[in-house]
């Protein structure tokens, strides 16, 4: 960790790092970068888990990663460090990406956006990943969200769902990993309506029931219900209980019943009018969710349409 923390100093450290790497490897290293990914995390968050997520995601989206770890405290505090993460690509060559870690206190947070802005790679997209949606509520963090072309939050573990969803809607270009997490459910539901007979029944659909864990539906359950109900005039019902966030989905209409039930660890039972079929179902891990979101080109129009409907459902 550097004693003096300025963007110039960090960039100099980076330059030195690459020079050293080049000298150390007789075959040279290939430096790859397609965007800047800024990750905001609380200091007490699982550092090893975050490292692993980043290492895996970076192999698919080679980027300059800037990890901002913030700790409680009223003192002025900044520390930084740089490192390269490399992986082999054959022929004794390797690709490396660079990672900058900046640690700061709550009190120093207002100075962080300026620092990060100076460290982004010119002319390439900047993506801000907030491990917790609470960052969206911190006023001193607002310039950071403004500098990113794309902000990704994870509302899955948020306590006040409605407030978070409203904040996401207000922030404009924010994408939510809770929405990304329902892609496998959406994929199976969409595939079911490739069937002409099911498609014919869609206009008569009158109830969408989502079974979820906990007393109240979380963001994922709300998104899924809003998305499923959108092209229909169906009522949405939630059924709380023990277990994981999303457990089953039931679509009903006169003479039509289609139910998807999770069968851990990797199955989904699809029952249509009493006829059951088991399909493979794979829930995405944290790094896979981030990978999917980083691969999205531009604005997610479907999410933008679903979000206000999910908020309306949360408002009851």
């Amino acid at each position, binding site marked *: 960790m550097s004693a003096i923390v300025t963007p110039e100093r960090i960039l100099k450290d980076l330059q030195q790092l690459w020079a050293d790497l080049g000298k150390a490897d007789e075959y040279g290293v290939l430096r*790859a970068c397609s965007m800047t990914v800024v990750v905001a995390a609380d200091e007490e968050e699982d550092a090893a888990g975050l490292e692993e997520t980043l290492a895996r995601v970076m192999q698919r989206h080679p980027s300059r990663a800037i990890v901002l770890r913030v700790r409680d405290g009223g003192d002025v505090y900044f520390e930084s460090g740089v490192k390269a993460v490399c992986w082999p690509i054959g022929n004794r060559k390797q690709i490396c990406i660079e990672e900058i870690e900046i640690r700061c206190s709550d009190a120093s947070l207002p100075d962080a956006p300026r620092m990060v802005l100076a460290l982004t790679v010119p002319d390439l997209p900047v993506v801000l990943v907030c491990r917790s949606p609470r960052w969206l509520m911190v006023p001193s963090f607002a310039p950071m969200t403004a500098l990113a072309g794309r902000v990704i939050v994870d509302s899955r573990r948020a306590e006040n769902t409605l407030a978070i969803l409203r904040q996401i809607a207000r922030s404009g270009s924010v994408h939510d990993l809770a929405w990304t997490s329902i892609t496998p459910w959406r*994929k199976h539901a969409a595939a079911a*309506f490739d069937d002409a007979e099911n498609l014919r029944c869609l206009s008569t659909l009158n109830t969408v029931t989502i079974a979820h864990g906990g007393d109240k539906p979380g963001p994922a359950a709300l998104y899924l219900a809003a998305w499923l109900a959108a092209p229909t005039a169906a009522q949405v019902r939630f059924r709380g209980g023990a277990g994981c966030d999303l457990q089953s989905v039931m679509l009903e209409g006169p003479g039509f019943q289609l139910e998807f039930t999770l069968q851990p660890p990797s199955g989904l039972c699809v029952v249509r009018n009493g006829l059951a079929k088991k399909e493979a179902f*794979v829930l995405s891990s944290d790094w896979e969710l981030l990978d999917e979101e980083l691969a*999205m080109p531009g604005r*997610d129009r479907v999410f933008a349409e679903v979000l206000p409907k999910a908020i309306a459902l949360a408002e009851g």
Partner: protein
Amino acid sequence: MPETNPYLDAMRLERGVPPCVIVIFGANGDLTKRKLIPALYRLAMERRLPPECVIYGNSRTPITDEDYRGKMKAATRQFLEQSDFDEEVWADFERRLYYLPGDLSDPEFYATLGARLKESETTTGGNVLFYLSTQPSHYVPVVQGLGAAGLARGKGWRRVVVEKPFGHNLESAGSLNRELQKVFPEREIYRIDHYLGKETVQNVLAFRFANGIFEPLWNRRYINHVQITAAESIGVEGRGEYYQQSGALRDMIQNHLLQVMATIAMEPSAVFEPSSVRDERAKLLRSIRVPKSGEIDVDTVAGQYGPGRVGTSDLAGFRHEPGVHPEARTDTYAAATFFVDNWRWAGVPFYIRTGKRLAKRITDIAIHFNSAPLAIFGDGAGQVAGPNLLVIRIQPEEGISLRFLSKNPGAGMRLRPVSMDFQYGSSFGVRTPTAYETLLEDAMAGDATLYTRQDMVEASWQVVQPIADHWDEAKYNFPNYDAGSWGPQASDAMLARRGHVWRVP
């Protein structure tokens, strides 16, 4: 009732491939072992092949399902590209792989096949993809056999994938098309040109039509000429008998390289949909000037490799390859200058060369831009050393590079060409699917964008046929290039006539 599925979300949800039966004719052939089965296995590995899909391999050799699975497992291990072999995935995959021995001229075989297809109907909805991976002489008998047995129509869709060559000349191409269309409607005939399935060739469309800065330069005002090179360092590798019947012109230029040229030169389509994209490609192919007999000698070059030495290896000449006639007149090298008669490209030469036993394996497209109108830095500065050059590398190391001039550091104004490079491998950390993965998945999904159409096949034969006829009659002094070289000297002379030189890729 909604007409289309309102839950489809092309941005995030992958296109669904419906369950189907895949029947591969020529199941013991090289293509099946090297490309088709490894590609299907990769699709299964990535869960892109629905679990209900069943694969039947057909060939004459009477072997059991178990033996066939063993052979294909060994082949997949050997030929799988950029991927590890996973025993568990294979175990699941091979449960859906069956072998159906039979003689393609025997109606009994088609009856047996029909019964097997019927058995799978409940899980596959009756969808069947027939893949002709046999010798070309079997294409028509197989299609006729399928038609006679009523297998070209069924409960679900029935499609046929045809491998090149689509005929050996214009007439036979027309005849093949007519025979195919007697049994299958044109929309269900998928003529595969695996070059179009290559990620980099598809990226040409993205590069040209998704970026605002290149398309304004993409015409006769700014582009001086285009060079397309498809060089192989290997010889005929045991395919001598087949190859001496076809040659480089028919084997590569008539299909792959004219398709690549069409992709480089076509007009943008209004929408990215199969018929629109293919219409534009076809239009471009029809705009290629058909060479007149007097032009063929100066604008085309045929070659055949003789013995040569590369490093410490002595390489045999074509006529000494196994299965090749000692006086074979086959072109193992072909180069041609084409012109496109439209407003965009009038007067711009498109040089195409392809050959076996050349100096290295490389396929690329080089767009040579015009020089700056005035050399203000003077000849001594090096400004004449290189006009801008855009190179699209198709294989190996897919990518794009742009060459431009830069000032040498230090005193004085000396210029030197430098290169800006984009490499697929390092910019996108994901594995690039092989062309056969892409094309097989497209065929199952009913997307024919990357497949060639009857009119495209016939348009490219229109261009190539006069050259082929002329070469068949001419008496060339073969061999005329050494194995391991960059081809015959006449090829350099062909470019020199217009003041150009082949770049060394």
